[in-house]
């Protein structure tokens, strides 16, 4: 399949990356928790697609494994855990935020521009096929980070964190053709465990404070 011209390939990769970015915005704009989870799952699907595409185009096979792992963990397992958590909650939508949605979207836009500006000088050294997606990866990381700041509910913060992770994976797979397999495996394992632990914590928070509004956690201070 190598005769497929590189430009097309890279354009397709960029397309997938762009879709990832779009889902980010969607998550930022979304109030309903379950919807956020679904959007995250969708984003992960796009991520898997990107990975598969890269694997296909470059013929580096262990990226397939990565793609498969993404599908299993991020599309199936983690969303399920999150759904369970949400079911136990007494709220289904997040009304109050630290930053209201329009402003949030605006800021995210700025972040995208920022990441363009930052990654500009280092794009040329990347691989022709996928180097543009580094910008998008950084953007996604920053937006995920911003989501964690903007949202108050533990669950949405978790989602923000997972979005960051997706950004990282995009960066890893797309920009650098993936890490060596063993690394990939390790990272996936850690992410899974991390998600689990955060899930456990959310449970306990719910039990202890019967709310997952993390802005209420201000007992420990000077």
């Amino acid at each position, binding site marked *: 399949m190598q005769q497929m011209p590189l430009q097309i390939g890279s354009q397709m990769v960029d397309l997938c990356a762009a879709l990832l970015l779009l889902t980010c915005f969607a998550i930022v704009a979304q109030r309903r928790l379950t919807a956020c989870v679904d959007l995250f799952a969708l984003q992960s699907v796009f991520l898997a697609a990107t990975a598969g595409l890269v694997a296909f185009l470059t013929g580096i096979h262990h990226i397939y494994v990565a793609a498969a792992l993404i599908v299993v963990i991020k599309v199936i397992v983690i969303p399920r855990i999150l759904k369970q958590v949400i079911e136990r909650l007494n709220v289904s939508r997040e009304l109050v935020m630290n930053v209201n949605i329009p402003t949030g979207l605006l800021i995210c836009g700025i972040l995208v521009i920022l990441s363009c500006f930052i990654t500009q000088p280092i794009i040329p050294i990347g691989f022709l096929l996928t180097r543009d997606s580094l910008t998008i990866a950084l953007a996604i990381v920053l937006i995920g*980070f911003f989501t964690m700041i903007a949202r108050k509910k533990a669950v949405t913060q978790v989602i923000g964190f997972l979005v960051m992770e997706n950004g990282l994976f995009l960066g890893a797979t797309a920009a650098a053709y993936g890490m060596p397999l063993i*690394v990939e495996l390790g990272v996936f394992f850690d992410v899974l465990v991390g998600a689990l632990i955060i899930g456990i914590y959310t449970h*306990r928070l719910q039990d202890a404070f019967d709310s997952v509004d993390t802005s209420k956690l201000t007992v*420990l201070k000077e």
Partner: protein
Amino acid sequence: MAWPLLLLITAPLLAGLGSLLARSRRAVEVLQSLLAGTLLIATALVVERVAARGRVSFGLFPEADALSAWFDVILGVVGAAGTLYAIGYLGEQLERGQVSLSRFRQFFGLFDLYLAAMLAALNVENVAIMWIAIEGATLSAALLIGFERSKAALEAGWKFVILSSVGIALALFGTILLYYSSAHVLGVTSETLRWSELYRAAQKLDPTSVKMAFVFVLIGYGTKAGVAPMHTWLPDAHAEAPTPVSAMLSANMLTVAVYAILRFKAVVDRTVGPEFTGHLMVGLGLLSIGVASVFLLVQRDYKRLFAYSSIEHIGIAFIGFGIGGAGVFGGIWHLLNHALAKSTAFFAAGLVLLRHEHKMLERVPGLLRQMPLAGSAILVAGLALAGMPPFGMFISEVLIATEAYAAAPVAVYAFLALLTLAFAALLYQVLRMALGEPVEAGRALGGRCLGFSAIAVLLNVAALVATGLWIPVQLGRLITSIVGIFGAAASLP
């Protein structure tokens, strides 16, 4: 022959597994005591070998050079002491019925897992696997911090999980960026992630991307190292975690995070020269000392007190590394002494906590009278942390100031001023606790608890004194080659 290295990493795993399966408290105690002994011996052997050959390898993993060995010493000694102390501490809680036997076993399982992960992170020749190990340590630490299921512990744990996860994620992005820039030099192989390869290829890497990588790593691992302004999780976690864990966090986790940053620094300096990393680290270091001394001054909780002092000392070490030359020496010397002193301080704090069951500073004066062991430990540790001779931190601070003065006198003025402020603040609090007459009786501690704690404290204090005004020859060799890694051998006498 690298079996000591392997032993160093596997021993905690086995002991942890054993403790999980063990049926009786006694069995756990025996296992952990064995672990402590093993750690000490293995560390000694590793140091000895590395000092002799410069590098001990077991294939890809584990592998240790001088830098790893140095941090092995810190983790080995403090880890051993911490394990012993944990036996006493948890044992006391067990006797009081504050923890069940199963929780008791779980604790040691997690505790040893945490140790193993840390040691693994140190002794691996691979950027990414180091990251994996540190993440592993973070996760086990997360569970340990929330171990006492109080609301406060939960809050602290949550903040730790979120903040350090973010940090670790950023660190990973930094790692990826480094890989990104090295991949097109070294090709896409797992060799690309080996430190030694990176050092060799460093000059050929693309400067900008390496700089960006370092920024991400600095913020990422800096969060775990508790450098201001990423330090915010640290006091909460240290205050709410079970005290043996607090000791380990301060002495090990921060140290390992600094180790990670150092590894990257070595690469980046080879690419873009030391100024870039130097300025960043000195800046953050000064900020850390400043923030820490402010909160030391207003502190009312003795565990938080020592937590903030950790921030201060990591800041000092940062400045040292940032300065380079004798500063690097001062930095690693400082890290070692800080680990010893700080864990001692936490051991003492733990005993006080067990006795009085509250953490309020002004209500526990007269410790020297009331609890001779805890009192004297807190006094010695406090003086060492305040940078008083004959303890090593005085030496390292003067070394850092000396090296810095040529480059940036102003920085030295700030450095000394902040140090003095921190000194006053810390000692004000510590002396309030140690001296005077006790006001509250509290509940007496069991002999076993005191016994184990006494051993732990003595171990630390012995090491502290031993590394006060002179360096054991083996360690000296390590330092020389470490300073070599940072290409500053020239500026040392």
